[in-house]
C-alpha cells in the first residue's frame, strides 16, 4: 500500500508540471492585461508600462515561464497583482471557507443521497422511486446560481430563517484561530459563533450540494439495483441472514464502490463549482477570489489557485483509491 501511495504521489509531479505549462499559456492567452485591469479608467500608457515592467510581464514568455518555474520549485507562488498579497497566504486563508462549504454540501448530498438511492432501488418502479428519480433529474438540470437565488429568496428573505450572505454575522463576537469557523467556535467554546457559522452554511451548502445529491442518488440506485441481484446476496438470503446484515455487509458495501468514485470526482467538481455559490452568497472562499482574479487578469492568483486546486483534486483521488482498498479487500489483494 505504501509503495502504491508513493508511486501515485510521484506520478503527480509530471501531471502538475504539465498543468503549470498549460496554465501559464492559458492565462497569457486571455485577452486584456493585468496592468490595464488594475488601473481601470485611470490607465495611462506610462502607468500601464510601469506596472507591466514591474511585474515582468514585458519579458519574453519563455523567460517569464522560467522565472515562474524557479519560484514554483521553492513553493513561491508570487503575489496578487491586484492587492499585492502572497498567493499562498490568501489561499490558505480562504481555503478553510471553501472546505467548510464543500463539506457541508457533501454532507447534505451523502446523508440524503445514499439512503434515497437505496430506498429507490429497493422499491423500484414504485411511487417513491418515481419521485426520487424525478427529483434527482430536477436536481441535475437546475442551474446552481438559480437555485441559490431561489433558496435565498424563499428561506432568507421571505421566511427569514437563514442569513443571505457571508460566513458569520458581523455582530457575533467570534475568535478565529483556524479559519474553519465552525471548528473555531468549538475550540474557543464560543458556541453561538459555531452555531452562527453552521446557520450560514445551510443555504449555500444545499445550493452547492443539490447536483451531487442528484448524482449520488442515481449512482446509488443503479449500483444497489445491480448488487441485489448478485448471487452472493441470494446466497446470504438463503443462509437466513438478517435483512439488515445483508443490507449493510453485502449490498451496501459492494454497492458503495462506484458511489465512492463518484464522491471523489464530485469533491473536485465542488471545489470549482463553489465559484458561483460563493459569489451569490458573498461567501469569502477561494471561489469568489478566483472569480475576481479572472476578471482582473491576475496571472499569479490564477496560476497559483488553479494549481492548488489541481493538487487537492489529485490528493482527493488518491484518497478515494485508498478508500477502495478499505471497502473492498479484493482491490487490496490485486
Amino acid at each position: 500500500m505504501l509503495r502504491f501511495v508513493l508511486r501515485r504521489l510521484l506520478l503527480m509531479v509530471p501531471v502538475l508540471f504539465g498543468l503549470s505549462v498549460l496554465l501559464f499559456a492559458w492565462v497569457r492567452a486571455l485577452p486584456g492585461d493585468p496592468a490595464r485591469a488594475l488601473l481601470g479608467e485611470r490607465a495611462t500608457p506610462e502607468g500601464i508600462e510601469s506596472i507591466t515592467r514591474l511585474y515582468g510581464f514585458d519579458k519574453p514568455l519563455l523567460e517569464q515561464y522560467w522565472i515562474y518555474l524557479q519560484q514554483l520549485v521553492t513553493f513561491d507562488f508570487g503575489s496578487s497583482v491586484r492587492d499585492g498579497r502572497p498567493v499562498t497566504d490568501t489561499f490558505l486563508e480562504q481555503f478553510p471557507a471553501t472546505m467548510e462549504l464543500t463539506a457541508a454540501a457533501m454532507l447534505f448530498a451523502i446523508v440524503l443521497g445514499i439512503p434515497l438511492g437505496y430506498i429507490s432501488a429497493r422499491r423500484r418502479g414504485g411511487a417513491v422511486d418515481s419521485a426520487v428519480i424525478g427529483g434527482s433529474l430536477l436536481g441535475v438540470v437546475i442551474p446552481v446560481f438559480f437555485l441559490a437565488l431561489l433558496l435565498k429568496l424563499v428561506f432568507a428573505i421571505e421566511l427569514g430563517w437563514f442569513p443571505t450572505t457571508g460566513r458569520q454575522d458581523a455582530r457575533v463576537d467570534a475568535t478565529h484561530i483556524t479559519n474553519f469557523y465552525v471548528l473555531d467556535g468549538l475550540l474557543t467554546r464560543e458556541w453561538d459563533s459555531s452555531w452562527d457559522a453552521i446557520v450560514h452554511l445551510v443555504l449555500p451548502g444545499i445550493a452547492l450540494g443539490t447536483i451531487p445529491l442528484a448524482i449520488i442518488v442515481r449512482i446509488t440506485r443503479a449500483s444497489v439495483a445491480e448488487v441485489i441481484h448478485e448471487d452472493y446476496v441470494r446466497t446470504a438470503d438463503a443462509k437466513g441472514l438478517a435483512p439488515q446484515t445483508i443490507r449493510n455487509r453485502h449490498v451496501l458495501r459492494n454497492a458503495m464502490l462506484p458511489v465512492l468514485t463518484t464522491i471523489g470526482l464530485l469533491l473536485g467538481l465542488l471545489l470549482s463549482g463553489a465559484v458561483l455559490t460563493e459569489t451569490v452568497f458573498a461567501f469569502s472562499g477561494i471561489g469568489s477570489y478566483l472569480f475576481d482574479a479572472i476578471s482582473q487578469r491576475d496571472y499569479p492568483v490564477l496560476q497559483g489557485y488553479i494549481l492548488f486546486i489541481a493538487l487537492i483534486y489529485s490528493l482527493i483521488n488518491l484518497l478515494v483509491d485508498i478508500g477502495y482498498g478499505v471497502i473492498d479487500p479484493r482491490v487490496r489483494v490485486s
Partner: protein
Amino acid sequence: MRLPTTRACCVLTVGALALGLTACADSERSDEPSSGQASGGTFVFAGAEEPVTLDPFYASDGESFRVARQMFEGLVGTKPGTADPAPLLATDWTTNEDSTSTTFTLQEGVKFHDGTDFNAEAVCANFERWYNTPPGIAQSEALTYYWQSLFGGFAEGENTDSLYESCETNGEFEVTINLTRPFVGFVPALSLPAFAMQSPTALDKYAVPAGKNPTQGPYATKYPTGTGPFKLDTWEQGTEVRLARNDDYWGEPALVDEAVVVAIADPTARADALRSGDVDGFDLVGPADVDPLAEEGFTIVDRAAFNILYLGMNQNTEPLDDPLVREAIAHAIDKEEVVSASLPEGTVPATQFMPDLVNGYSPDVETYDYDPQLAEEMLAEAGQSDLTLEFNYPTEISRPYMPSPGDTFNVIRSQLEAVGITVKPTADQWEDYLGKIQGTDKHGIHLLGWTGDYNDPDNFVGVFFGRESSEWGYDNPKLFDALAEGRTLTSLEEQDAYYQGVNEQIMEFLPGVPLASPVPSLAFSEEVTGYVSSPVQDEVWSTVSVG
C-alpha cells in the same frame, strides 16, 4: 419624472439629511451633554469589494478610501454635500499670490490613535514620507496613483520632477508647504484620503523594508494609525474590517460603538443582505433595486452626482473626424430619454464633460439640443445619409457613472437608427473593452465616463482631453495647450473663469456627447439615521446611529 409616493417619502436629499442630522446630533448632545456618550451598537455596512490596503497613501480604490475616511483625517475636508474644501485638521490656510506656498494653521489638542501628538512636525513628516517614497514597487502607479497624478515625481527614482518642494514648521501649530510651481488644486486635492495624516511614530515602528510591497505590511494591515473618530480593531482579510470608536477623538465622538465593513460584490446580494438584516446599509444600489427597496421601507440616500457619462467618438474612424457628422450624432440623441430609460431617477442630462458642482462649469456651452430632423439634414450635407457606425459598449459591468451600459446602449442605438444611421454593436467584457477603447484605434463610438476625485476641472477635462489618446483619436494642439495652461493658474476665481472658456471650446469641438451625471444611491435599514452622503464620498460615520 414623478417619484412614487413611497420613494418620494424615503428619498432624502442631501440638504434634508444634513438638517435631520443636525437635529439628531443636537438631541444626542442634549441627552448626554457633558460626556458625549454614544448611542452604541454596531453599524454593519456592505461595500462592493475588499479594501486593497489600510494605508491610504498607497490606495486609490474607493473601498480602501471608505475605511480610511473613518480612521484618518486630512488637513482639509469637504463641506457637507459639496466637493469644496473645508477645515479639518487645519483650521485655516492662506496661499501666496502665485499659488506656490500654502500656510496651514493646525487644530490644537489632536492626538493620533497611538497617543502621538498631531502638530506641524507630524504634518512635515507625512509630506516628507510621501515625497521620499522609495523607488520600486511603491513608486508604481498602482500604489501611488494620486501622488503621481497630482505631485508628479519623488525625491529619487525614475521621475524626480515633483511639484512638492519643502515643508516648514512655524511653531507647533503652523506649517507651510512650498511647491515648485503653481497648483491651484493643491488645497482641494488634500481632501483625498491618500493625503490623510498618519502617525509618524506608528509609521516608523511598523515600517516595511524598501522594495517590499507596503500595501500588505504590518502597518497597512494591522496598525494603521490616524486621528479619525474610529480606529482599527481588526482586519480579517477576505472577510471584514472592524472599526472601534475612538473614545479620545478630538471632535464629537462617533455614536456607534463599532462599525464593520464587509464586501459583497453582487449588487443583488447586497440588497438581499440588507433585506435579511445581515447588514445595516450598503453602497452602489443597482438602479433596478432603488424603487423596490424604497417601497419595502428601506431608506434610500442619494449622493449628489460627481461623475460624467459620455458617448465618445473616435476621430481615427471615418467619418467621425468630420465635425458635421459629430454634430449630427449629438442632435440625434435625446438625453432626457437616455436618462429616463437607463439611468437612476434624479439624474440630470449633461451639457459638458463635468458635473455642475465642479469649478469651471459653464452655463453657456453649445448644447446641441435633440433635433432628429436637423441630424438627418446634417448627415445628408456631410454626404453620410447611409452611415454605418461601430458602437462599442461594455457588458457585465456597473460603474457609478454607468449603472447599466447595455440599457444605455439600446436607447442610443434606437435614436441613432431613427435618423438613418446603421449601428453595428460591439460588446466586450469590461477589461477587454477598456483595452480596446484606450489602447487601440479599433473602435467607433463608445460609452465611458469618470468619477471625480476632488473639485478640480483638470480632474475631468484634463484627464479626458489633455493629450492625444487612442480613445478620442484626434490631435488638437490648441486644446492641449489650453488645458496645459489651465494647470498653471493661481487662483480659484481665475480657474473658474478660465475653465468655463475651456468647456465652451471643448463643446464647440465636440469630441463626444456628454450624456448625464447619474445619481448614485445608498440604502439603509429603517433603524439607521444620520448618514450624510457626499458627492466625493467623503462620508464619515461618526454621526450614524443604529436603532
